[in-house]
């Protein structure tokens, strides 16, 4: 399983792997919003946590269809399905690899990009914490969506439409926790709700995604 993780990370980082695409998109969103909203510092710092969360979520969405599609096209997925690694393990590892090359860089970059939107002092901490807890759920839910649409040509549109509603609870609780934390209020409740969504996704979705993959491989 470690071999699979190493391979997926290597493929992502090498030419054409799409590493950095999400990060660049996130940077573009964080840079453009102040131009669109206007230079009023008070408004920007109020909307910053929400915008950063939406930006991170959309950046995550960009690379989802790569999770299984490339392996499906070149036949690796058939071979992985017959390999000793259980399909659930393959899904979990691929979601983890996606998080390591997409969610984690976004989480690390978010506090810095927050400066572009006048994110106030405790906000840097809160945006980091909420994204750290929330982005694994985005990768796992995304892997499930990718497993459902793996056989489809140009399945990216359907994938986005399938995954978007599933992302909404994570976004609501994540952005709420970040906003509350930034404003100095107690953010424990939304934070725990989001942590619950992440834990539930990681526990259940590998099984659902593996079942979807098995059907799509037939």
């Amino acid at each position: 399983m470690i071999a699979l993780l190493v391979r997926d990370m290597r493929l992502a980082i090498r030419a054409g792997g799409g590493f950095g695409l999400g990060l660049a998109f996130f940077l573009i969103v964080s840079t453009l919003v102040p131009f669109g909203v206007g230079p009023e510092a008070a408004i920007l710092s109020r909307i910053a946590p929400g915008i950063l969360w939406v930006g991170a979520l959309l950046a995550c969405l960009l690379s989802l269809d790569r999770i299984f599609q490339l392996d499906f096209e070149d036949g690796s997925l058939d071979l992985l399905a017959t390999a000793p690694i259980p399909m659930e393990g393959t899904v979990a590892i691929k979601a983890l690899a996606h998080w390591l090359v997409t969610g984690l860089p976004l989480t690390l970059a978010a506090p810095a990009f927050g400066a572009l939107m006048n994110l106030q002092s405790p906000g840097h901490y809160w945006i980091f914490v909420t994204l750290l807890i929330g982005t694994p759920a985005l990768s796992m839910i995304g892997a499930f969506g990718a497993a459902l649409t793996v056989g489809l040509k140009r399945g990216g549109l359907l994938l986005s439409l399938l995954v978007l509603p599933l992302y909404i609870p994570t976004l609501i609780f994540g952005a709420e926790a970040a906003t509350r934390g930034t404003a100095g209020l107690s953010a424990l409740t939304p934070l725990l709700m989001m942590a619950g969504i992440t834990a539930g996704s990681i526990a259940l979705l590998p099984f659902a995604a593996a079942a979807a993959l098995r059907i799509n491989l037939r």
Partner: protein
Amino acid sequence: MEMKVENLSVARGGVPVLEGVNFTLSAGHVLILRGPNGSGKTTLLRTLAGLQPPIAGQVSADPEHITYGAHADGLKATLTVEENLRFWASVHGIGRIDAAVEGFNLTGLTHRPAGNLSAGQKRRLGLARLLVTGRPIWLLDEPTVSLDAASVGLFADAVRAHVAGGGAALIATHIDLGLKADTFDIGPFRANGERATSSQQRDRYADFDEAFS
């Protein structure tokens, strides 16, 4: 280590392709699967490999004993030959890839990205993967596509060595590999198109034949 197939019926896209297939593949034997294009060889192999469920009958073989060699080689263009092989070796818990590299004459190519290989070299790399799975039953779907005569010889040698070591192979191919092998013709097991009663179902057969011819 023996694969016994009893009364197996397989379907593609919900349409029965083969019905009542029976054969036994035992250790040390090679079985050549013959049948015209679109007759269901790939579907049969995929079913035996456990990638799709049969609609009837059973396969008595441990899935952990089977490795499947498909049309697609499952190679990553940006990884080198060695990285590609090492990945499949470690997935299957095998430490060494030397024998596979030498067996398919890839020695000079180990540091080349797989994307830069020619079609025949890619195929050789795809076949070398079989050796690093360490699994006794090989199910191969037209393994010699795009191989030159010398490479077909290498492949035949690899199969010979594999069965001599107690392995077995079921190979769908249209050419003569020069192996001591039994031939299994799937023609008699083809699901009869007449079974489909409605014209709509007959159309589906026509589409199917077209798609796979």
